[in-house]
């Protein structure tokens, strides 16, 4: 029964997706109905997930699924974040599609399929399952990115994402093959057992993990696999970008942590590698972000930086008593800030996302003070200024890094955080300290603002009452 409960959110979302898909077949169904429905599904799934108490680790339906799925507090937290992201994205799209008419009902179905893949990804304890879940998620996101067919930029974005994603996926399969060759199994547990028994640096394991890391790092937009992310975020429509930036990253890092945490030998041998990757990711991301004038591109680049922080947390996870709390907390904090940011951009962007650069937001505070304040809160959270959630997230990451004797990493993380202040403040400065040039008239629904302000609340709530799992 417990096994079933753990799967229940996933089932709710997947059946919701199918229902919506079927609904799309009816001429009469309205887009708004679909958005309400998907909100409802996400909300129900969220609360179910919240109510499902979870022990340390449950292997779900061990007999039937052969130990390929496992739930823990960490996966529960991750799926909560993913479901919340889905919920808020659905809220955001509700008003976004009022001014941008390119959507159809399938949008929500595909989004929920994507969420489904993400949930599977968090639960999976086996490489090929992870791969399929990853592909479900990716394919859904590809479709969402390219959903606006009339927009050539979206098409370009989907091209880039699809090509590079499939390229990275090929590495994943090759890595799986090598691991299979080395271990004779693709389950995390058995890989861990093998590494414990033999050496974690056996050539096949080394090569296999390397290729798998490449694929995961690609999805996480780590250096040097980051180049796509800026263009794809730019090309995708704003709510999709928000969904991508938060939920997808959550799923990827969850599986990444699950994979690493099963396996102390593996973790130990890859720490140095991840160390350099995380440093390069943070600084590369900052350097890209500083030169951007488009907000979505800047946020994409800052997403790279945040991936760098998450990699710090990965470097620092202790395999002995892995709880993933630091990663989950950081993801939650990051998701709240980023989603809020994209939600605000989605309704402030106006028709066809005409307001998208830093300069377009000059003087926002004079005309729409509350929206400006909300954006400020999100930016500050992303920058890691107390008392927002972002600060506590960064604080945990640094604490875990120093506790794991990675002082250098902590300091580099902080330096990168300093660098990132630059572009976050730039937007605040534009909003507050410049003369108004635009009227910022928008036609958003109450959902968009509600979503933004709930997220403001979340940012503070997560920050002030950090429930560490």
């Amino acid at each position, binding site marked *: 029964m417990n096994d079933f409960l753990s799967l229940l959110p996933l089932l709710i979302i997947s059946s919701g997706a199918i229902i919506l898909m079927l609904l799309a077949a009816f001429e009469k169904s309205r887009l708004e109905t679909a958005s309400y429905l998907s909100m409802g599904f996400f909300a129900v799934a969220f609360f179910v997930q919240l109510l499902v108490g979870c022990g340390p680790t449950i292997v779900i339906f061990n007999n039937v699924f052969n130990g390929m799925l496992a739930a823990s507090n960490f996966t529960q937290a991750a799926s909560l974040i993913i479901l919340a992201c889905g919920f808020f994205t659905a809220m955001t799209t509700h008003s976004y599609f009022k001014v941008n008419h390119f959507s159809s009902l399938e949008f929500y179905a595909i989004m929920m399929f994507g969420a489904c893949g993400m949930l599977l990804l968090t639960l999976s304890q086996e490489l090929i399952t992870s791969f399929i879940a990853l592909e479900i998620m990716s394919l859904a996101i590809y479709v969402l990115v390219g959903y606006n067919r009339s927009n050539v930029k979206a098409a370009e974005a989907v*091209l*880039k994402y699809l*090509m*590079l994603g499939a*390229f*990275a996926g090929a*590495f994943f399969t090759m890595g799986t093959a090598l691991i299979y060759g080395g271990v004779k199994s693709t389950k995390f547990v058995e890989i861990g057992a093998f590494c414990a028994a033999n050496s974690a*640096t056996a*050539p096949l394991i*080394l*090569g296999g993990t*390397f290729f798998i890391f*490449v694929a995961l790092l*690609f999805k996480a937009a780590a*250096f*040097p*696999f980051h*180049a*796509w992310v*800026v*263009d794809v975020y730019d090309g995708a429509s704003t709510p999709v970008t928000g969904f991508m930036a938060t939920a997808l990253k959550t799923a990827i890092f969850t599986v990444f942590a699950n994979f690493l945490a099963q396996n102390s030998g593996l973790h130990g041998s890859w720490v140095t*590698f991840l160390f350099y990757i995380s440093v390069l990711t943070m600084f*590369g991301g*900052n*350097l*890209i*972000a*500083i*030169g*951007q004038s488009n907000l979505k591109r800047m946020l994409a680049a800052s997403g790279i930086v945040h991936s760098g922080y998450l990699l710090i947390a990965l470097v620092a996870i202790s395999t002995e008593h892995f709880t993933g709390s630091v990663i989950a907390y950081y993801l939650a904090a990051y998701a709240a800030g980023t989603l809020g940011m994209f939600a605000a951009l989605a309704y402030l962007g106006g028709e066809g996302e005409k307001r998208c650069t830093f300069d377009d937001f000059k003087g926002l505070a004079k005309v729409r003070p509350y929206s400006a304040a909300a954006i400020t809160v999100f930016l500050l959270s992303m920058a890691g200024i107390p008392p927002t959630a972002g600060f506590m997230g960064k604080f945990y990451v640094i604490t875990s890094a120093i506790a794991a004797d990675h002082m250098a990493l902590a300091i580099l993380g902080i330096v990168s955080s300093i*660098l990132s202040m*630059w572009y976050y403040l730039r937007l605040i400065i534009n909003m507050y300290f410049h003369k108004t040039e635009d009227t910022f008239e928008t036609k958003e629904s109450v959902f968009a603002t509600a979503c933004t302000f709930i997220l403001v609340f979340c940012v503070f709530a997560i920050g002030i009452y950090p429930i560490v799992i």
Partner: protein
Amino acid sequence: MEHTVSYLGFIPLLPLIGAVVIGLLHMFTCRKTPLPEIFYGVLACVGPVLSFLLALVVFFQLKGLPAEERFLTHNVFTWFAVGDLHVDMGFLADPLSSLMLLFVTFIGSLIHIYSVGYMAGDENFGKFFSYLNLFLGSMLILVLGSGPVVMFVGWEGVGLCSYLLISFYSKETDNVIAGNKAFIVNRIGDLGFVLGMAFLFWAIGDLGFDYLSLKANVASIPPGVGLAVCLLLFIGACGKSAQIPLYVWLPDAMAGPTPVSALIHAATMVTAGVYMVARFSFLYAHYPVAGSVVAWVGILTALLAAIFGMFQKDIKKILAYSTVSQLGYMFAGVGVAAYSAGIFHVFTHAFFKALLFLGAGSVIYALHHEQDIWKMGGLKDKLPKTYWTMIIGAFALSGCPPFSGFFSKDEILFSALASGHTGIWLIGVLVAGMTAYYTFRMIFLVFHGKPRVQESFDHAHEPPAVMTVPLIILAVGALFAGFLNLPGIFGGNLNVSHWLAPSLSELHPHVSFWVELLAITTSVVAFAIGITIAFKKFGQGATEPEFTGFAKFGYHKFYVDEIYNAVFVQPYKAFGSVISRFLEPNVTDSHVKLSVWLYQKAGAAFKVFQIGYVRVYAIYMVIGLSLMSLFLSQTIN
């Protein structure tokens, strides 16, 4: 030993209260309906006079005690106590301070009274008296303070008041600059004072940081520290008492109203340095080296100021340099460990210098603020009271027996000789002659001969009684004060020396009668030569000479001000400009600017990599992969 008397604190407090009350009244009324001057005048004089009366009480109470127990203290409250440091806001009246107290309050009161007449009609009448009271109050704190820190309060207080009063006519930029100069130069000296206090504290101050405790523990001071303390304190004294190299502010201090000059030069401020050295005589007595430094600095200052004095044409400047010169004597006195002689000279000097300044004030008042002696002349008949009183003052200043100055100066020169400082003695004698010369040069030019500017001469008239009475009182003092301390050769009583003895750590070298006689004779001869030359040159009226050669050099005060300006002031300002124009934006801030610049450039450079071709992105990935695998293949053997 010590006796606590609770009224001691009132002596400085009374003028201070006066200052606050007058100040507030003036501040709130000056813009609308100023109060009548007489109101301020009375209010201003009450404090000093009452203080003087209290000082008399103190004096007689002390006198009633046995010589060793002549200490009256009053610790009003603990000022601050931190760790071992314990500073009381306390007052100490011993023979030394009581003597100072007496003449400071006495002369101060007279100057107050005189000022009522002198300042009549000034729009800032109230402000003036507020400052004047504050000045006197500060000086009394300085004198009465029970320890160096309390003394420092008065010390800085008089510095502040001198600033306020010198720049009193603040609409003229020069006056304000003179005030600034006084304050800043004093502050330089204060640095020495503070450092000296600090060293003193760390040496022995933890056992009690007042004079009596310090004196009791002076034996345990490490020798090096003690010497340093002496020299540092002397720097403070140099600043306050206008000694080389910090004397430059005093002549400029003439910018203030004349009674202020009188107050600064006679009763307050400049004597503080001498007083301080005498106060610390228990320390200086252990360090003859420090004493010699003091004495030499003093006598050289005396010489230098006398040279400058010979060539000045501003009546107040002449008097100012004479003060510097006399202060030099005093330091020579305390330097050769003749503390009582030094203090006695302070005492007599207070009378005749106040007299001379107030007299000069009368002249200036009579001539409508004319200060150039080459524009005066023949005023003897017009201003008889002023003339006669000033003559007395001049004799006293020049050291003519039996005027007060003679005895005190002679005592110093004699002590120098007796303690083996022959060089100091010789210079002292020379300066005595020069003093007589420039003093009487002034007297002759101002009062004798024919009027040089007829118009102002015609309008000149004797000032009112409120100004002349103080002159007369002071003249009496200048005439007879010397007899309070008749030296041994005249069958002397040495009253003052004996009175001061409990306060001072003085050595009395035994000397022969002949040495004493030699000293007196030479100084009388020097005086005679000086006055003769002055009479020859100026007695019958003379015209203003064109200064050439050394005279010009002397008139321009050896260009010391200019040198200071070029060596200290301008570089200071220039350095400030360099910092704010160049260093601050380009050097100190460079780390910030550089990092920002680098960051932006790097960002711009990184943009190039985001080329937009999907194939290129794949190439990035593969290059990264390839580098990593290159690295990883090292680990496979």
